[in-house]
């Protein structure tokens, strides 16, 4: 049971962005997409989510071709947490979270008792239950990201996609959010694919790492094996060291001082 991406190619109006990418995303682990700006991380996330269709190659979720599945079916397998949500209408937090039930509801039905129960359980799981009646646009950025994660959990999917979910958050919130995502992966067996900019966060939280370079997979594997100075230097094209702290933790540093 996994997401498998096989020889996928995709381009916008002639300019090829993804040039034959292949990898897998297993359940119960965090797989991290690393790469420079323009390497195709966001495009790849959108391809896996079925928002874009591959021009060649196949993406399967537990054996089902994403491009050929109805939208609701895809959304029952994959949930998506956006980078930052710019809302227009100030929905209540609970109202926003229960929208995650949509793939389980028909065109003319609304969420019922059971759906609200799922939403409340998700809010409790990520620790935002106390915000239920608050205006979604009046809470802090970190709380908002947790609310979006609660909405994704409300979809009850085996996989979770995240596109730089921490890029707008402060240091503490970045770690809080990713620690929460790791708990979800471990406790619920959810397979997480997360695009990320900070290699140190990837080193701290990722089980597996996929390095993306100009639309191709440069290296893929367990985080500890892939995150070497040589690979990181090739990926970011700058001098990079991986230092080991006395207690065994590792850290990525540049040569600036």
């Amino acid at each position: 049971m996994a997401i498998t991406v096989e020889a996928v190619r995709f381009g916008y109006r002639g300019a090829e962005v993804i040039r034959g990418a292949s990898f897998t995303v297993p359940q119960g682990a965090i797989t991290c997409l690393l790469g420079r700006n323009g390497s195709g991380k966001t495009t790849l996330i959108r391809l896996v989510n079925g928002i874009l269709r591959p021009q060649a190659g196949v993406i399967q979720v537990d054996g089902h071709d994403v491009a050929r599945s109805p939208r609701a079916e895809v959304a029952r397998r994959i949930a998506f947490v956006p980078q930052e949500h710019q809302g227009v209408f100030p929905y209540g937090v609970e109202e926003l979270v229960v929208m995650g039930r949509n793939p389980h509801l028909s065109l003319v039905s609304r969420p019922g008792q059971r759906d609200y129960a799922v939403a409340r359980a998700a809010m409790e799981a990520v620790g935002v239950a106390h915000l239920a009646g608050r205006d979604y646009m009046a809470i802090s950025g970190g709380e908002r990201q947790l609310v979006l994660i609660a909405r994704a959990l409300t979809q009850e999917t085996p996989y979770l996609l995240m596109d730089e979910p921490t890029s707008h958050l402060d240091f503490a919130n970045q770690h809080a959010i990713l620690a929460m995502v790791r708990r979800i992966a471990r406790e619920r067996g959810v397979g997480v694919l997360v695009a990320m900019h900070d290699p140190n966060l990837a080193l701290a939280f990722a089980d597996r790492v996929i390095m993306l370079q100009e639309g191709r997979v440069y290296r893929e594997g367990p985080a500890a094996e892939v995150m070497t100075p040589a690979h990181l230097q090739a990926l970011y094209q700058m001098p990079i060291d991986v230092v080991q702290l006395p207690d065994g933790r590792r850290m990525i540093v540049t040569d600036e001082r």
Partner: protein
Amino acid sequence: MSRGDRRRARGWRALVFSGLFTLLVIVLSFGMGRYAIAPGEVLRIVWQIVTFRFDPQTAGEAARVLYYIRLPRILLAALTGVALAGAGTLFQGMFRNPLVSPDVLGVSSGAALGAAIGILLPGGGGSIQVWAFCCGVAAVALTYGIARASRGQSVVMLVLAGMVVSAFFGAALSFLKYVADPYEQLPAIVFWLMGGFYRASWPAVGSLMLTVVPAAVLLLLTSWKLNILSLGDEQALSLGLNVQVLRPLLIAAATLMVAGSVSVAGTISWVGLVVPHIARMLAGADHDRSMPVAMLFGAGFMLLMDDLARSLTTAEIPVGILTSAIGAPFFGYLLISGRREAWR
């Protein structure tokens, strides 16, 4: 009681309030007009009509005035209010912009051009409505076609294409005004554009119900989905919403009912813009609650405007003038008083 429950209770309160408001305006409207009928008499006749015991052959003069003049006019104004407020709520949610009105896709400018064509062509009054309806629908179809052909970000492209089509139809309308006979046709066009319910009749009510009732039902059935649509395409798709099917379906429904009401009542501005805001202030952001509130309140609001239009002066004022004259300052008041809680 959780805070989420409190939000739901607010929605019910808003629904009851707008229902009572509209009911009150309807009752008032029966008694208003140049032909004075005592309130007790009004209630007696209305009760006859409602219980199907009204017989035009044996009815008195007061009853005939109510049945043939006031009742169709009340229904026409209420249906138009439902159409404009419902379409306004839909488009503001769908286009994620609290400033769009039902004409954003060009339906009003299309209908206006159609009406002008109908007035210029030799023919009867019925053809004006048919022309207005068809051109209104055609304008939106053209907007949708341009947006599809551009393959851009569809929501932004739809709004831009709507501006293009509105400008083009507006130019065509100006040309028709220029070539129209200034003594007969030009005033007819100008008067038509100002809008009003003076053309009310039972056939007009019947034809308007044909488009407004099914479209309003569809909008009410799918109003919860509008919340998801309002998050933007990427999130709506991620939440399993079939945007490519639902959006054109809802646009078609809104276009039919707005084109229907514009072709009967002329262009009535501001109702479709202001009423959705009032509904959100009453009911909250959730479209599942603000949509029915907007439709109910819109019916009462439109009716009240028409009551004013026909009773403020001895001669009737075109209702489009009143909705602008009252709607615009009211909207300004809402902006100043800081009651912007319903959008950001």
